[in-house]
């Protein structure tokens, strides 16, 4: 079970990220719990200053921007011990 959190105070970008995440999870049939974290103090625990941010299994994998669908899929299906490498590197 993947634990997905979307950190955001309610800006349009945060909503877009939540929507996209739900789409990807549904499309690729990922078993996951999706939580939206809106409380600023809770967001700060992840040391995030620009919203939205994506947390997968308690690890911040993305902040401040909306990924493409492919990128997001890769981020969500990553094994726990691997770090993500950005495309084109």
């Amino acid at each position, binding site marked *: 079970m993947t634990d997905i959190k979307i950190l955001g*105070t*309610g*800006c349009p*970008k*945060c909503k877009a990220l939540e929507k996209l995440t739900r789409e990807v999870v549904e499309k690729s049939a990922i078993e996951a719990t999706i939580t939206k974290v809106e409380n*600023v*103090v809770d*967001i*700060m*625990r*992840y*040391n*995030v*200053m*620009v*919203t939205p941010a994506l947390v997968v299994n308690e690890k*911040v994998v993305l902040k*401040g*921007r*909306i990924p*493409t669908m492919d990128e997001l899929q890769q981020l969500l299906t990553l094994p726990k011990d691997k*770090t993500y490498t*950005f*495309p*084109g*590197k």
Partner: protein
Amino acid sequence: MHKKNYILSAWVIAGIIVWLMIYHFLQPLTDWFVDSLLGMTQGARLTETVRFFVFEYPKVMLLLLLIIFFVGIIRTFFTPERTRKALEGRRTFTGNVMASLLGIVTPFCSCSAIPLFLGFVESGVPLGVTFSFLIASPMINEVAIILLYGLFGWETALIYVVTGLAIAMSAGYIIGVLKLEKWVEPWVFEVHSGQQEEDNKEQMSLSLRLREGWSAVKEIIGKVWIYVALGIAIGAGAHGYVPQGFMVSLMGNGAWYSVPLSVLIGIPLYSNAAGIVPIVSVLIEKGASLGTSLAFMMSVIALSLPEMIILRKVLKLPLILTFIGVVGTGIMIVGYLFNWIF
């Protein structure tokens, strides 16, 4: 370099060439469109109003497109984490200068104001330095600079940037000297963020940076195109129909009260640079003085009511009022200064 990067770079270069062609031929194209295609009478009021819009709107949008793209790429090099690192523990005026300058290039949107404020204060960036950042960041942005450049010329754009920076630096410095930490909500100092990770893990590739530049274009243009259109349409209408000198008595050089009045009116007016600059350009054309117009514009952009309401979460009312007072005074000084010079 990755093969994908070559293809992307080729696209970017092709795009710039097309851009240059359109920009270069915009004036003859406009004239052809208005005079031949629409067959309007040259010199008539309506003709000149239409011509103004048909020329200025694409021009400003073209400039926005190009600059936002490159600023978007530049911004991928400046993350808030890096900015914070650079500002940690800097108390003196140097901190305010750096914060104001970094405010221009660090990506920032008002919905991130609270996490950013918390993140800065929590890691030991002084309050005054944080304020310099919070003032400069929304006030001096690429949209404002491009519109000023497109509709007024580079001198006015430069004046705006320099005076805006001066206000952000000195207002932040004053707030720092006044030691107003007591007016920050106490819970702010109790926030402890998690592990500070090294952020160079996110080493971006060129293609990702280009993509970020493009997504900045889509995001900002998607938001401002309508305001620019409205602003320039109103401007075009006034350009043709409002008599010359109409604004002299209200916002002219002679009326001393015009500067503070403009600042006061500007606070509740919440508009972005995209909507306000075209209107201000017409105010000036019709006799408003540069200083007063500059003050009005700065007040609308820098002192926005919604942002104050957001900041109220972390700041007590006296600090917000001090903030408005200090920045407002700075704007008024700029207004009077330019009314006096010109």
